[in-house]
């Protein structure tokens, strides 16, 4: 199988900060590959190296069979990049921005319209509006249209859904899934753990290191213990008490519950007695499936 991206031993430091530390991974054709990690993990630095905008200190990056340093000119024609910060021209209209990007890449909007029609049709009614006056969801759709207008083989999206509301986020992922029909490989980063499930494979990244690369379900399955969901009305009291319980391995807040692992991977009557003595009489416990975030916490 052809690898669209092949990264081996990529490192990058800024001053004393190790932004990327010996990063190796590969991305297959037509896959949606996600980088999941918090701010400062190294996602943007890595994307800037893949897109030939930044040179690595060490390692080799091969993209679409080309070297990211030697073949950067040819490579840029085949990559669509949507940076994390909205970087279209705010004082041009929607239509002018799209035409501009098409022209820069030596093509026309008409030529590749079928590729963007699904996305662009949402904002076409506002094509005379200045890009700076669009809502967050509309800006995101325009930026994606501009990144796609030269029909790239590889699309790189840096936190495309950050700051966008949940409805638009959900629509966005449906659009990405549809792009696969056009044989476009997509690399996307997000700080939202739940979005990992929308990717074919994900890399968990933290402090410049890749912690794990696998299909999202596999990452969840990697959780090494039985996980329990404990609920009570007084959450702070519940967490404090659970941490004092002798069999507790780890207890941390998770949404409206507390996620807990126990030494014996099971719960006994003594837990309820213990919590009741701590003044918690409305406790419920249920075994639950680990999420990507639980696994991330385990690996950190």
């Amino acid at each position, binding site marked *: 199988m052809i690898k669209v991206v092949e990264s081996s031993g990529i490192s990058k430091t800024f001053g004393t900060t190790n932004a990327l530390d010996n990063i190796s991974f590969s991305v297959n054709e037509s896959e949606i590959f996600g980088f999941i*990690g*918090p*701010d*400062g*993990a190294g996602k943007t630095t890595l994307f800037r190296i893949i897109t030939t905008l930044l040179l690595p200190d060490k390692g080799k990056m091969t993209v679409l069979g080309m070297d990211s340093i030697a073949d950067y000119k040819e490579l840029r024609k085949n990559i669509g990049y949507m940076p994390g910060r909205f970087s279209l021209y705010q004082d041009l209209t929607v239509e002018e921005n799209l035409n501009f990007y098409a022209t820069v890449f030596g093509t026309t909007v008409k030529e590749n319209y079928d590729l963007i029609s699904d996305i662009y049709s*949402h*904002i076409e009614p506002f094509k005379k509006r200045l890009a700076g006056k*669009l*809502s*967050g*969801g*509309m800006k995101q*759709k325009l930026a994606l249209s501009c990144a796609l207008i030269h029909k790239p083989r590889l699309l790189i999206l840096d936190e495309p859904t*950050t*700051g*966008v*509301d*949940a*409805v*638009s986020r*959900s629509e966005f992922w449906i659009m990405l899934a549809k792009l696969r029909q056009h044989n476009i490989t997509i690399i996307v980063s997000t*700080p*939202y*753990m*739940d979005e990992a499930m929308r990717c074919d494979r994900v890399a968990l990244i*933290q402090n410049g290191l890749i912690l794990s690369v696998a299909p999202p379900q596999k990452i969840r399955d990697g959780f090494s213990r039985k996980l329990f969901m404990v609920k009570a009305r*007084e*959450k*702070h*009291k519940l*967490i404090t008490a659970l941490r004092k319980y002798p069999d507790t391995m780890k207890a*941390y*807040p*998770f*949404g*409206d519950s507390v996620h807990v692992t126990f030494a014996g991977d099971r719960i006994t009557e003594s837990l309820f007695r213990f919590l009741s003595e701590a003044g918690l009489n409305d406790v419920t416990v249920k075994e639950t499936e680990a999420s990507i*975030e639980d696994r*991330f*916490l385990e690996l*950190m």
Partner: protein
Amino acid sequence: MDNRVIIVKNLIKKFGTFVANDNLSFEVFKGEIFGFLGANGAGKTTAIRILSGLSSPTSGEVIVAGVNASKKPEEIKKQIGYMSQKFSLYEDLTVKENIMLYGGIYGMKKSLIKERTDNLLEKLNFQEYGNKLIADLPLGLRQKLAFSIAIFHEPKIVFLDEPTGGVDPITRRQFWEMIYETAERGITVFVTTHYMDEAEYCDRISIMSEGRIVALDTPANLKKLYSADTVEEVFIKIARPVNN
């Protein structure tokens, strides 16, 4: 005893002919963690500006920490704290300087600032960072400090705007534990966020759409009502964004 820290009755806010807040009514209680959700453009920011004394209602009644927002918006500002993910602290000031600045703005006595600064740095295990510039602190520490400073003057309510967006899962959890502890002390925590998983941590949440509140209950009850597994699913079912 009246436990209501925020009382909003028939709040209407118009900009010209545009109705940004269309007859909002809700209450928030002492020590509650209240999530205020809505799509982009739903009217959240307008409502929060009114609740924090930065804007006044066109009509209706808004009482925050016992103060009427139409009559004494300046009084409200003394009673609340605010922290946002985007702007929180001055990067070119040290940790102690930031604390001093905020304490001073809220009119706290120097001796009290000094005493609480020592306590705060000790509690956060921050002693070694006291004289460091904010710019030199990792993001996670900054967020914790920003929150601590937002409640430094012991406000009745603290408004948090996407407080844990983008931070790593461990820091995020430490942060929520700080929020739980704050709420347990009786400070009301008012959270606005786009991150639906943040909403799951709240005691109650409201969802705004097109200027109105279309849902208000505990996350568990809303999930039951809309047969959804997550708040995100609830949100997608009922919060239609204004623009596409």
